[in-house]
């Protein structure tokens, strides 16, 4: 059977990136196994949980990026949320007594950056609104919960975060007008 080649010749394909990702994946998996074992062996605080979260962040943010909606807002929010989780874990497992102030500060800082990313290129970024809405919702919820339970002297960052999330929601709605409702419709459709 003789085959007439009617496609462009590609030569030997380079798969350096694929091979590197694969190698990094196995290394991370090995590290994810070794960390808890070492932690259990030497005892002490459960630092391995923090290491595991770090490995997960490295995998999802760098080595295996999202296949749908990989944009500056979604990636920034992913980084922000996992960083907040990391801070909360450090407080819980290693050094207590500071995260209730620091996490909301990081949160409202993140909201400001998010707003800048969104409003600096609104025409395109309106298609990337769901991650931002999720952040707004989480910030508002976190703020309400914190204000109910935390001591008054450490409530201010939570109050700022809550107010900022509401302000961002109103700003989005005002900027997009009817488009805001349509974006909602798209994002929450069940058809």
């Amino acid at each position, binding site marked *: *059977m*003789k*085959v*007439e*080649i*009617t*496609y*462009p*010749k*590609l030569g*030997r*394909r380079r*798969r350096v990136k*694929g091979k590197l990702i694969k190698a990094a994946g196995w290394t991370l998996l090995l590290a994810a196994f070794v960390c808890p074992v070492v932690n259990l062996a030497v005892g002490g605080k459960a630092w391995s949980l923090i290491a595991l979260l770090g490995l997960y962040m490295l995998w999802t943010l760098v080595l*295996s*990026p*999202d*296949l*749908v*909606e*990989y*944009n500056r807002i979604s990636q920034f929010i992913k980084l922000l949320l996992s960083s907040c989780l990391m801070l909360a874990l450090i407080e819980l497992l290693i050094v207590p007594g500071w995260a209730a102030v620091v996490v909301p500060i990081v949160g409202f800082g993140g909201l400001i950056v998010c707003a800048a990313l969104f409003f600096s290129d609104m*025409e*395109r*970024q309106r*298609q*990337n609104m*769901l991650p931002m809405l999720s952040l707004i919702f989480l910030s508002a919820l976190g703020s309400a919960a914190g204000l109910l339970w935390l001591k008054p002297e450490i409530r201010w960052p939570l109050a700022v975060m809550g107010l900022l999330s509401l302000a961002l929601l109103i700003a989005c709605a005002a900027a997009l007008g009817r488009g805001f409702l*349509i974006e909602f419709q*798209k*994002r*929450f*459709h*069940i*058809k």
Partner: protein
Amino acid sequence: MISGSERMKTAIGDPFEEYMESLPAGDRAVLADFFLDFDSRCILAKAEKRKLRGDFEKAVLYYVNSGLSLDRALELLDPVNLGGFYARPAALWFPLDDAAKIYPLSMKPGSMSVFRLSVYLREPVAPELLQMALDFTIRRFPSFATTLKKGFFWHYLDTAKRRFQVSEEADIPCRPLKVSKSGSPAFRVLYWNRRISVEFFHVLTDGSGGMLFLKALTGEYLRLKGLGPEEPHLWDLGENPDREEFENAFARIEQSPSSSGFMDRAALQMDGRLSRNRPCRVLHFKMEASQLRQAAKSHAATVTVYLLALMFIAGKAATDELEGEQSIQVPVNMRKFYPSKTVRNFSLYCGVRLPVDMITYIDSMTEEISRQLESKGSKEAMNRMLTGTERLVNSLRFVPLAVKQPVARLIYGFLGDKIFTNTLSNLGAVQLPDWMAREIEAMDFVLGTAISNRAGCSLVTVKDTAMLSIAKLTADPSFEEKLYELLSRDGVEVKVEGSELYEG
């Protein structure tokens, strides 16, 4: 004011500017008016608008260099062909149809359901005109001018107002599309020598919808080449799209009282080491349709049944297993049961299954294959499958995507395509108007490969040329060699074309 030296620099750097400079004042004014008209029809972002304008400039230069008058060139490229597509902000969005919902849920890095349709012209493709043809055609297919987005419960397609680009083929066919970035399209248009190809992510459409797009694009390309009629052809690109053209046609069908599932016993797979490149080779068996029909007739079978029989025998030759069942997936176009103008997915599938013992001679199998095709591919059977699909979709509609996605990926990864050995998708005979048929030599249809099926076959016929394409997932040539031998034995002359083996 542009200084003399600056103008010189522009003229040297930009062939279009250079051409403008060489024109008499009258022609320059005509061109300026032409681009003013273009400006009024384009509100794209600056960079995109520049690219779109660049397309017009390149096309004008192409015409002028081919000896066409400027007036005729501008007539062919009239910006009125852009319609309002680039002049209006994005407004439409489309929930995925029932068949499309699984594709974004199950895709993985390097693995995506992509299929490809190609047309072979008599002359080498002019990229400048193909780009213009795409610029003019896309507005008629609003559900293709989209980008895939994540909702809270389901993915959806959101309109992307941008210039869609054609590019020269330079990679493996049906390779995954990058749909992650803002506005990135879920299809690509490629050209290579005399071939125009469109590769689609299955979320957009099925083979029939894709064929409509390819025909419209080719028709527009031929018009720009001066080979087509001036009046509207095929799909009138100037018409507003009809709502029915992008409806989820599955939703119109009444549910059947009973439903059928998607599970079945694992089928025998052909042997041969799975390649890392997907597909690792594409082959086209180019045959005379009349010879193929004659061969099928000599076995008292239809072309589909005949080819299925050959595929079963070739599949048996491609494995050392002596027990088990082979199963071939056959997509069923639902438009034949429920006429619809939709260009989105509107097909389901059935499986023709034979135990290895039964796979012997063509004549001994055709009756059983016909029987199974008739019963499993019947309207009732399809309705049952559709009801099963609808029930599954309905039961999952309030489950957040973040939960559905990993579960779907896990299940799909586990089940995958193990219940099938191979696929045969027959798009049938493509009808073309005479003026198009004169310029088109052949067409082909390539299925994106599956997970473990070593081959996927597809057939499309245009005029008297039937093109059977095989997308391979293994370097082992046993399957295609046996198929070639069987066809040749039945008196069908086969010319084999295709790609090199993408290995290494």
